[in-house]
């Protein structure tokens, strides 16, 4: 008989005991360990996911911050560019103003220089004209001219008014020394006598005369005594002409520095002053 029923029962019991033993010592511990490990892995994965989420959030935040930084940088750059452009424009304006000022100053200086040069030329021309005129007249001053000058002087003496005559007479009376007669040329005897006669006719008393030569008088004669002076010479004419010319130039300069050029008024005033003082 292949089946022994006692053995069957014993084996069934053995098998059930083995089931219990393995459940207790094998399956449960192993399954628990596997579950614990799976939980651990799940937890690590959850942690990793959380870290990943955090990292992504931080990355997004960083990207946003970067974008904001870029925008800010662009704004700052734009602002700086605008400020630089404005500063450049301001500097250009300042430079243009300075250049204008320098140009204006230079123009003023040029004008002043031109005016001064003009003035110098005018003065020089005037001085030359008068010098030439004086020299010509001095060269022309010959015997006939000197005679003519003497005649004119005598005629003047003779044509004096009563007031002048009395003034001269009064002066001659009070004079202690001889009266002085200066001429630009050596006066001949005849002419000296004619002058003496003419004076004698004006003043009853005998008035001694002293004759001197003064080339600066340019063809003229000058009678001086006790503070009274009677003269005729070409230098006086020239002096009068020079005064007239200077007055004319001064009037022209005043007219040139009109009210529409206020920036040059000071210079013009200075010029006027120079001319007048001169």
């Amino acid at each position, binding site marked *: 008989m292949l089946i022994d029923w006692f*053995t069957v029962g014993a084996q069934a019991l053995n*098998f059930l005991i083995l*089931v219990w033993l*393995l*459940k207790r*010592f094998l399956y449960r511990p*192993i399954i628990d360990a*596997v579950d614990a490990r799976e939980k*651990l892995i799940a937890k690590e994965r959850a942690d990793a996911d959380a870290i990943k989420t955090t990292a992504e959030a931080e990355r997004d935040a960083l990207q946003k911050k970067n974008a904001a930084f870029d925008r800010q940088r662009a704004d700052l750059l734009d602002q700086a560019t605008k400020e630089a452009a404005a500063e450049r424009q301001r500097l250009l304006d300042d430079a243009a103003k300075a250049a204008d000022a320098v140009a204006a100053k230079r123009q003023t200086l040029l004008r002043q220089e031109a005016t001064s040069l003009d003035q110098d030329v005018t003065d020089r021309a005037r001085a030359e004209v008068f010098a030439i005129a004086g020299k010509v007249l001095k060269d022309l001053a010959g015997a006939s001219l000197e005679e003519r000058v003497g005649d004119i002087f005598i005629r003047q003496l003779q044509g004096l008014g009563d007031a002048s005559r009395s003034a001269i007479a009064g002066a001659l009376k009070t004079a202690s020394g001889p009266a002085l007669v200066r001429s630009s040329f050596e006066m001949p005897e005849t002419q000296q006598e004619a002058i003496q006669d003419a004076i004698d006719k004006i003043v009853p008393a005998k008035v001694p005369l002293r004759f001197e030569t003064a080339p600066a008088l340019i063809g003229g004669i000058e009678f001086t005594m006790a503070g009274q002076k009677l003269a005729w010479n070409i230098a006086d004419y020239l002096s009068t002409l020079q005064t007239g010319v200077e007055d004319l130039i001064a009037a022209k300069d005043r007219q040139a520095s009109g009210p529409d050029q206020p920036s040059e008024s000071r210079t013009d005033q200075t010029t006027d002053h120079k001319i007048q003082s001169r």
Partner: protein
Amino acid sequence: MRLSPDQLILWQHGFVKLNGTIAFTWALMLVLTVGSVLITRRLSTGMIRSRWQNLLEIVVTGIVGQIGEVGLRRPRVYVGFLGTLFLFVALSALGTVIPGFEPPTGSLSTTAALALCVFVAVPFYGIEEQGLGGYLKTYIELTVIMLPFNIISEVSRTLALAVRLFGNMMSGAMILAILLTITPFVFPIAMSVLGLLTGMVQAYIFSILAAVYIASATRARAPKAKPKTGTPPPTAA
């Protein structure tokens, strides 16, 4: 010549006796239990674990996976019974490489005991899952006429389980013993390897068939939990 280790009587007192089948079974139980205790004494729940723990984890999770694939909804409930069936049968076959060891599954008494356990476990789990009425209803499903056929099927498949395992294990051991007397050198080694393979296949078939029977008894309440692999006929292999 002994056809079964039952015939190896170590001790007897009347009806009670200690034969080779029981003794080898105890030896297997001792190895399995002590080995489990030793390995699971210091289990690691971290990523680094010993190779023995790795082996047991592979075995246990493999069994759980197979049970799940058969169609049982809660594989961890059945792993104690079905896993022990597999391990016991497989270790019996593996033990044949040890000289002097006779597999207890080579005894019809052992295979009958295991088949009887399955025979009891099927209605036990069926009733636990569906209730008594629900389980009994499966016998008259489609029509009442099916009742006797279902009962015959229940009995015959239990008998088939017992005889199939016994025949395979006993024949393997017998062939090995006969060949050892005829050609004592290389050929028995090849047959021994074949015997190991046959033993593994039988362990797999036995536990899978038991799982299928239990699944068919518990499936009524879980119509969605169909097995991925087709349900083999009860008399397969």
